[in-house]
């Protein structure tokens, strides 16, 4: 590491004191990496109130870094096709995972993801919580548990639950590829959570169902779906179907508006 950069790196870390909103860079000239990585902001409870600005003071590189223009064998990024790029509504370049979720125009328009939406604190040893549990916010070898993060937006929707005759890819045409034909009425308030821009999503969904499909329809690369809370909507039948039993009826407190 170059000296100037290292010095800067050292100065950006600090003791998180009473207010979690103070600059993480405020104190601590000379605090080394050994100490920095054990800084309380990386753990509960401080991480729950950490702002993106605080995180990025040290971790800005995660957004500065872009994909390589081409792979070692010559595959050009402009020729690569990520799944989301197959959508009509998507505009823009090939992007890295973090930029795609945080700073691309579509991310800014529809989402309000915070670093701590996924990163909920983990052991810097990247080993297990003590004692072992099935209820960890991170899993072995992984800082983030996809089951409680990624699945909140991406995941397989059971077409049978939705009452469709088959998968959307085969049956979408029957509905003119328009989710709103049904979901104009059958609505939940699921988008009313802090990590999404609900109004913008509603608007975008009205304009083009590709936006809906972008999150809910494709990317079926996890075999299970997220047990969303079952918010009743006006006129909803009082009977809870089997698939929805045992589900919570409210979003997690930390995401409620």
């Amino acid at each position, binding site marked *: *590491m*170059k000296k100037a*950069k290292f010095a800067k*790196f050292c100065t950006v870390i600090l003791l998180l004191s009473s207010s979690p909103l103070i600059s993480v860079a405020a104190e601590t000239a*000379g605090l*080394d*990496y*050994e*100490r920095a*990585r*054990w800084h309380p902001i990386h753990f509960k409870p401080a991480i729950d109130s950490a702002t993106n600005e605080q995180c990025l003071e040290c971790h800005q*590189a*995660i957004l500065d*870094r872009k994909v390589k223009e081409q792979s*070692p*064998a*010559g*595959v050009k990024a402009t*020729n*690569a*096709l*990520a799944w989301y790029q197959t959508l009509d509504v998507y505009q823009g370049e090939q992007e890295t995972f973090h930029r795609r979720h945080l700073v691309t125009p579509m991310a800014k328009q529809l989402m309000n993801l915070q670093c701590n939406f996924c990163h909920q604190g983990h052991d*810097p*040893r990247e080993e297990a919580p003590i004692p072992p549990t099935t209820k960890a916010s991170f899993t072995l070898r992984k800082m983030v548990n996809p089951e409680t993060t990624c699945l909140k937006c991406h995941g397989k929707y059971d077409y049978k639950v939705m009452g469709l005759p088959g998968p959307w890819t085969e049956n979408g045409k029957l509905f003119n590829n328009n989710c709103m034909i049904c979901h104009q009425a059958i609505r939940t308030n699921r988008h009313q959570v802090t990590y999404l821009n609900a109004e913008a999503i509603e608007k975008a969904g009205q304009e083009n169902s590709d936006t809906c499909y972008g999150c809910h329809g494709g990317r079926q690369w996890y075999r299970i779906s997220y047990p969303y809370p079952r918010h009743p909507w006006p006129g909803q039948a009082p009977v809870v179907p089997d698939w929805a039993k045992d589900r919570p009826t409210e979003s997690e407190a930390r995401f409620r508006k």
Partner: protein
Amino acid sequence: MSNTAKSLASRLNMTRRSFLKMSAGTMAIAGGLVHRDGKAFAYEPYLRDDDLTTVVTSCAHNCGSRHMLVAHKKGDVIVRLSTDTGEYQGDSWNTDTEEVPQLRACLRGRSYRSRLYSAERLLFPMMRVGERGEGKFKRVSWEEALSFVAEKMEYIKEKYGPTALLDQSYAGASWGVLHKSDQITGLLGRFLGMYGCRTSSWSVPSYQGTTFSSRMTFGTIKDGNEDDTFAHSKLIIMWGWNPAYTFHGGNTFYYMRLAKQRGCKFVLIDPQYTDSASTYDAWWIPIRPNTDAAMLAAMAHYIFVNNLQDQEFIDKFTQGMDAGTMPDWAKDRENFKDYILGTYDGQPKSPEWAEPICGVKAADIKKLAEMYATTKPAALKASWAPGRNAYGEQYNRMAAAVQAMTGNIGVLGGCSEGVGKAWSPKSSAYPQDKYKNIWKQSIKSDRWAHCVLNYPNVKREEIGLWPRSDNTDGQIPNIKGIFWQGSDWFNQLTNINKEIEAIKKLELVVCMDSTITPSGLWADILLPIATHFERHDAALPWYKGHYYIHRPKVIEPLGESKTDFQVFTELAYRLGFGEKYNPKATRDYFDNNEEVDEVYLREWWENQVMAKQHVELTWEEFKKRGVYKFKLKRPHIAFQDNVEKGKKWYTPSGKIEILSTKLARYTDWTKTAYGYEIPAIPKWIEPWEWLGSEKTQDYPFHLVSPHPRWRTHSIFNNIGILRETYEQEVTINASDAKRLGIKTGDTVEVWNGRGKVVVPAYVTERCMPGVAVIHEGAWMDLDENGVDRAGNPDFLTDDNPSPAGAFAYNTVLVNIKKTELAHRPGWDKLATARSQVFRRESSF
């Protein structure tokens, strides 16, 4: 279907049906606009093992084992390393039986390529240009370097006499049958001895208390069973033993898994719940460090009081176990049983007596004693670490007494270790003639700094001067120079701050190694030594395991490095005794050593291995295969013939000497190498620092510094791929940490009157309260105030050895607090793992 797929299927034990279902070919997913299908490897052409030249060799560092490494090379470059697959001895691929197991290398061995090609590799002779210890060197030619050393040697010998050069070679990175560094049969000892100027270092840091005990009790250090015998025990008591960390000998750790599968129960006596405890599902009995002899005495008490001892074994084979086994000449002396029962001092050494000393409940001591005395066969493995203490020899002597009183010696599944050295390989390929191990004086190894700093006002007992039979007996050596060969002792001996004071008084410090080491930074001259990949030799396990591994020259020596044998031979020629030193060599050996080395090695194989160990495999065939594994006619069990056939033990009495004839007959202890009295029977003696001492008011933690898994002592500390797998940290119990306000990851300083180190803390329930653990071997890294930022515990250890010579590495009290001082985790932080991840200018 191809043949390879077929053989894979059959090797993987697949059913015929699934095997027929396999088909060749791969399929790329049309994920994007790929312009070709994905291939197996990121970089083409990828050299598969079968495209490379395969050379069988071994690891070479000082851990007691030697496991197989197989170099896969292209041209003169080793591309990767693998290990034994069973096929090199001529069996089919993956043969791995209980009788002939594979010799699989550990993580340290597997990292050897990183060591071989490390940035720390010494490639040229280097001469110091700054102050000693400042670490500034310039490159010089071999001619300059050797002339400098030879001239200095002549000057020092002339001016200060025949004891002025201290031999600190050790079995570090340089150990084979031909290129060997150790104190007794090593190349340096022969070189300095023949030159006529040598003070040797007689106590072995790892286990001097243990070897002393075995020599006194059994008359030999070969008290060990072979590794496979552990599979036959019904109870294994691991006393301070952590084979899951040390990989100590052959396949010991694996045979213990087999024992577990056969119903063996395990017990661990240790301040830490180690990975050995968890793997073998052991009953963990946490014990205060340095109190092991007291607990063993209490077990003996329980066994005697309940008459559980094997009296027939005692009567037949022991001396001094009880009144009935006392020899006539010692009838008025203390016997062991009466000491235990308190006949002499009115204090029975009962479990209740031991409880407050050891921190172990009396009920647990009784339960363990009952288990051990009634389970047959049972192995009480009294390992080395509890012997690296003040009066550590008493622990090992006490353990041997308990082993003997239960009759667990000389039987399959029992254990009389101790040292543990078992089957004996033929270990020297160069002359073991009258020039072997000539020494003018010999001192306890950890007393050199004390000797240098106080010369000439030093008493012989302070430095453990070995007695001589000539008129130089008792002369204090006037040490003015040190040779390090394959040793990093400056970093590894006790009380480094005292060493730093002493080394400033020397006039010549020579370091011979393949990498720069922390010791090397304090040298005047650095001589680059070829690694074992770069010279011809053979490997053997000196501790357990019965095999030889051939070590051909795999690649040409890097840079200008030469073998240590070449360097000593060349220096010997310059000093006038080259022909005697290396009788098979010619004057050009420095540039041309291969033919000579081949002759030495072939003669070793033919005249020693083939002639004396019933081996029929020829030298040429051995070289071709790369390994020879012995199939022993019966499991090798120490003292089996003594028990079954009445063979005498190698002690003065021919018996297991619980009462030592030698010790009982010393009258003037100052004239012995020990310097201070050692009781003739094993006794609990209070150490000078422990949790029961008043010193705990200032220093409330007892520090132990066990061997790490990720280094062999200090070797491999610079290897990034190992370095990223651990922290050099202090382990403390959660309740202690809470009291001190310390959490895992906090940087703390650990200090006492001898020094201070800075390390991160690891807070756990797996460590006994009051105990702190820092693994030995971190490469020292001093700040401007002399604080070690790397966390080398030997800044805290005491250079005062136990009377029998045991290093008191584990007799250390310290204090701990959170600190603002910096910890530096590696030799070069930016070259180590985590910094690689966090190097911000990269495209992270």
